């Protein structure tokens, strides 16, 4: 069954595209970016580049050495983030970033493990893993990019698509209620719950740092403009971007029931939940092992 036309592997020079020079303000994060992979696959005006920048800044600010950071992404436009970061990175199957990260965290609890992926990836196909990981309170930093749609596959309905919104699979308007993500995360047991947009650099950065710091399940919903969503809903991309800046209100102590994203209503942002009393799952797992071994 051997493949006969196998050549022995010859060291071939790896055709790498030229490294992209970044403006001086990005000097601090440049070592963390695989700039040889630039330009990214993302559409012009997509919000994911901003998130990439802010996440890289958070790594720098975290004072945790880059080699102790791991990022796991699923499939989708957002899932490509792992591929642009110069840290240990995993691009796994659609929806499975959280279990994959759970395996890493249980095997190497000393690592700072983040999951960055799309709303469809984490909350639709991966929804079951999300609720259970939150319930266990495993120490993961989960960043969900909510662009209100499935971007990569051409704009289908997702579990965060607003009611009434048009997509390829809801051409007459979405009939479903979207998830209220912060409420869901809280109800399932997350230790830290926040919502920001990609435009709120500083607040988002601080939220990511908080997620690193908290030893438990942290969820940050990040709202991000998507050209596909704009197009399907007859919006100009600029209008969508403006909407995410002008329709948003910061209210850290907002009741979670009020956080549903609804057409024509303000979108509430903030760091809503921070609770530190629950032990993290990997800690409890290790404690049992230690106890059994009399350590």
């Amino acid at each position, binding site marked *: 069954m051997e493949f006969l036309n196998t050549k022995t592997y010859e060291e071939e020079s790896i055709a790498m595209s030229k490294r992209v020079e970044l403006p001086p303000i990005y000097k601090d994060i440049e070592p963390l970016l695989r700039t040889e992979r630039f330009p990214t696959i993302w559409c012009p005006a997509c919000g994911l580049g901003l998130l990439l920048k802010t996440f890289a800044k958070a790594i720098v600010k975290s004072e945790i050495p880059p080699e102790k950071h791991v990022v796991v992404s699923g499939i989708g436009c957002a899932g490509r983030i792992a591929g642009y970061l110069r840290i240990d990175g*995993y691009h*796994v199957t659609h929806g499975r970033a959280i279990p994959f990260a*759970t*395996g890493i965290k249980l*095997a190497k609890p000393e690592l700072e493990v983040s999951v960055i992926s799309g709303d469809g990836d984490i909350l639709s196909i991966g929804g079951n*893993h999300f609720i259970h990981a939150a319930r266990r309170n495993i120490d993961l930093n989960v960043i969900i990019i909510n662009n209100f749609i499935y971007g990569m596959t051409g704009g289908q309905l997702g579990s965060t698509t607003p009611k009434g919104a048009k997509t390829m699979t809801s051409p007459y308007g979405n009939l479903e209620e979207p998830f209220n993500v912060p409420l869901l995360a809280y109800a399932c047991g997350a230790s830290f719950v926040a919502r920001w947009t990609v435009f709120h650099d500083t607040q988002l950065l601080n939220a990511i740092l908080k997620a690193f710091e908290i030893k438990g399940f942290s969820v940050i919903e990040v709202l991000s403009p998507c050209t596909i969503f704009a197009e399907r809903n007859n919006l100009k991309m600029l209008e969508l971007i403006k909407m995410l800046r002008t329709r948003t209100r910061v209210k850290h102590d907002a009741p979670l029931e009020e956080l549903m994203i609804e057409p024509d209503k303000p979108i509430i942002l903030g760091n809503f939940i921070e609770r530190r009393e629950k032990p993290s799952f990997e800690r409890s797992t290790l404690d049992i*092992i230690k106890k059994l*071994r009399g350590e």
Partner: protein
Amino acid sequence: MINLRRAFLTGNEAIAEGALVAGCNFYVGYPITPSSEIMHYMARELPKRGGVFFQAEDEIATINIAIGASWGGARVMTATSGPGFSLMQEGIGYAIMTETPLVIVNVMRVGPATGQATKSAQGDLMQARWGRHGDQVAPVLAPESPQECIELVIKAFAISEELRVPVIVLIDEFIAHMREVVEIPSEVRIPIRRRPKDPSETPFGSPDPRVAPPMPPLGEGYYVLVTGSTHNELGYRDTRSFETHFKLAKRLWNKVWLNIDKLFEYEAWGIEDSEIGFVTFGSTSRSVRRACKLLRSKGIKAGYVRLKTLWPLKLDPIVELSEKSRAVIVPELSLGQLVLDVERGIGDSAKIISYGKVGGGEPIYPSELVKLASKVLGK
């Protein structure tokens, strides 16, 4: 010095003991009959030995947690049965593509769907080989007794670590729940994962197609990039080029197939002069062995080939068996899957009889095989 410890174990317990001896330090699973005792055993024993035991929310989570843990440096096993095995398939494909060491035990029960959860079957042979989409290969081992469960689980760990490949161990409910005396070695040698010596040694490329590339450890600054998409030797995605994909697919394929001498094991009995032959694996081989002895005592020259490795497969022993035999019988607890290999191997150089039987926990009895062989030979 290696000591042997005697114990009286079921196949499922033997799988767990074999894994522990092989240094398994991470078990993740989701309960399913008839595999659950493996999980129960590991839940009890693994934490005492410093390992992590974890029950996931489903088998899709299970396989992905297992792969993540393996990249985290753990020696990982999971066990399941038909429906769970089906759910794991996408993940197994990812493990093959990303060259992740891992042992997956599938305790076969009657299917499709929920079928008969507590009853034995051998109908997952093709799923074990071909359950994933795309071109892919993962070794499949098939013990026939609790003793062999220990031996082949140890072998599975050794192969998976050496070749950076998930290895599937296929048993059936009869083996899982039969209890026999076993001898457990006090220690075994499992190859240590090779790390790249320096950055020139790429994590997804190897100058020798028989040798797995080194596996960079996590958290030590190798900045490894791992993807299930087509990638070059550095791990960088390349989902456009023919060359990159073809080279990767062939390397992953050859990594297993070119090691066939190391991977392929079988047992042959009486094939020098057999007039009637059997090809078998797993629990059914126990009836075949008995039937051959009974036939010989009646003056009928019977012989068998028992496959301990189901994939990658060498057809030579089957061909050899067929050279002498007038007919080859393939008894299976399914409607016939192994028989397809026999057909492929021997064409029409001997008569091939598929003897499939499945459901209700009915084994294939030696007496049935004796009767069938006698009839086929007209004796």
